């Protein structure tokens, strides 16, 4: 029993109590509070696996770049003169300073501010100052910016890996790719991420954000003030009753989605791609990226994506009205995270119940338009969470 293992290190499967045949599924709050589990997550998910970084529309022009961090490691994505997007560790091969000191821009070359070594936007070292100090055998071509072991794009979404690995991006995305297609196929043109991003931090574990983005059960309660505003304006209100046809889906590999249907009959998703990306369509389009900073500290960056023929100005306002630290929705989710992290300090009652909907879960899509999935339930059920934590435990137990 987990409670008796006082001095031994926690194993991932110790934290999951998976007894679906008894309609029981529980998760131990150590997943949010144990440093050694967080170390394992950092290695397995963020340093060894595929992680979302940017959208191709953020690198529209030749020589555009963005400098970001993946699990604390600085990287640069840059579109070279040949139009190809490449990823590098943002680290001078000389003495380790950041080569790219601005978050975004356009540059034919990067010049390190320490000793002025310069690199082409495609990564090659093209010049060192004081070349007489290096012998004739010094080979510039051996000191290009170190490429990221993996940079792959799926329909404009750029993922990277910080360590070499066998798994192709398509294999990682698995069934979730078809659900991303549903979002992207709504427009004949590629989506475009617009300038400006809203970001915030919270003093809690990163998985709380992943869980919450696909949780509709809380919407009528936590976002009551937002629904009160809608009701006063005669707009559509979300309550438990009108979620009866909405769905929560486990897509395998830790991915999942929740699907509502708009007044016009169009499916709308919050699609989660393990471990750090959520693509949302309602109440407004958002690409949301989760950055774990510490066990109990997380940064979230939100971007707006536009589809052609949509009223961008209204959708921008709809985004700002709900999402982000000054929105009328997100801050109350933050309050939940802080409250839960407080609750997880309790050692005498550590288990979370994640069994909602086990009695009505199915394995085949209820609608013809839905691509294959692993499990599906009502949107208020914990279907996604169970898939998430099963994958979490499997990956950590394998150490990858």
């Amino acid at each position, binding site marked *: 029993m987990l409670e008796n293992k006082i001095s031994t290190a926690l194993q991932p499967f110790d934290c999951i109590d998976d007894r679906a045949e008894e309609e029981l599924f529980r998760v131990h709050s150590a997943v949010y509070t144990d440093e050694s589990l967080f170390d394992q997550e950092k290695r397995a998910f963020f340093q060894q696996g595929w992680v979302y970084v940017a959208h191709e529309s953020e690198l529209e022009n030749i020589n555009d770049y963005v400098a970001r961090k993946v699990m604390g490691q600085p990287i640069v994505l840059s579109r070279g003169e040949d139009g190809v997007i490449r990823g590098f560790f943002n680290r001078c091969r000389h003495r380790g300073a950041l080569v790219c000191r601005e978050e975004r821009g356009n540059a034919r070359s990067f010049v390190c501010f320490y000793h002025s070594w310069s690199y082409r936007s495609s990564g090659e070292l093209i010049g060192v100052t004081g070349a007489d100090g290096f012998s004739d055998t010094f080979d510039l071509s051996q000191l290009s910016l170190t490429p990221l072991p993996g940079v792959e794009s799926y329909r404009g979404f750029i993922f990277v890996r910080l360590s070499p690995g066998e798994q192709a991006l398509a294999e990682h995305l698995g069934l979730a790719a078809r659900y991303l297609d549903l979002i992207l196929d709504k427009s004949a043109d590629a989506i475009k991420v*617009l300038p*400006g991003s*809203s970001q*915030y931090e919270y003093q809690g574990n990163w998985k709380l954000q992943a869980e919450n983005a696909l949780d509709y059960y809380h919407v009528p309660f936590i976002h009551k*003030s937002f629904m009160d505003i809608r009701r006063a304006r005669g707009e559509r209100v979300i309550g438990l009753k009108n979620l009866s046809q909405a769905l929560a889906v486990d897509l395998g590999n830790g991915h999942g989605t929740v699907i509502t249907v708009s007044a016009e009959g169009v499916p709308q998703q919050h699609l989660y791609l393990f471990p750090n990306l959520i693509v949302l369509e309602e109440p407004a389009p958002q690409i949301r990226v989760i950055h774990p900073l510490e066990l109990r500290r997380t940064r979230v960056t939100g971007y707006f994506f536009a589809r052609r023929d949509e009223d961008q100005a209204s959708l921008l306002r709809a985004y700002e009205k709900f999402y982000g630290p*000054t929105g009328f929705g997100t801050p*109350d989710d933050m309050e939940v995270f802080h409250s839960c992290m407080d609750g997880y300090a309790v050692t005498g009652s550590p288990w979370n119940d994640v069994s909602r909907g086990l009695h009505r879960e199915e394995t085949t899509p209820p609608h013809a338009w839905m691509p294959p999935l692993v499990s599906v339930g009502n949107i208020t059920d914990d279907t996604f969470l169970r898939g998430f934590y099963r994958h979490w435990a499997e990956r950590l137990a394998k150490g990858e």
Partner: protein
Amino acid sequence: MVTSSSTAIGHALAPGSDLTNEAQRLIYHEADLLDQGRYDEWFSLFSNTATYWIPSWKSEFELVEDVTKELSYIYLTHDMLRDYVVRMNSSSAFVMGPGLRTTRLIGNLQFEDGQPMCVNSRWVMHVYRRHQSELFSGQCKHEFVVQEGRLLIAAKRVVLINDQFEFGHMPLV
């Protein structure tokens, strides 16, 4: 509760009053009302076509400029300001309580000549909650309008130097 008949009230201007003094008084009064949670009165300081805007940083140097094409933290028109007040006055804005306290300090007021009357200022806001403090600061630009002898806020633009938001939230400045 904000009623549908809430009208912009602003500050009454006595004949011959010094407009820059009155603008300064209004700015300090606005900060005071927000610190005290007197949201209906705060709302009444804005004209019926007022906007409240917190642009995002596009990069380390550039702020968002075109709200029709770029994402800000918030861009509220008058009716959305009213929505904010409804939310603040409800018991369901959970992030606001219990016990959230703020101090808004406004300084470095600089008055721009010409019409409309504008005041640039600097501000610091200390937010205290759950035994934790957070400090925000930046610049602010108020645009004023005089309607029927009353001074009103026609537009407010707030720039944050730090958009970290450690607790995922910031009350309106």
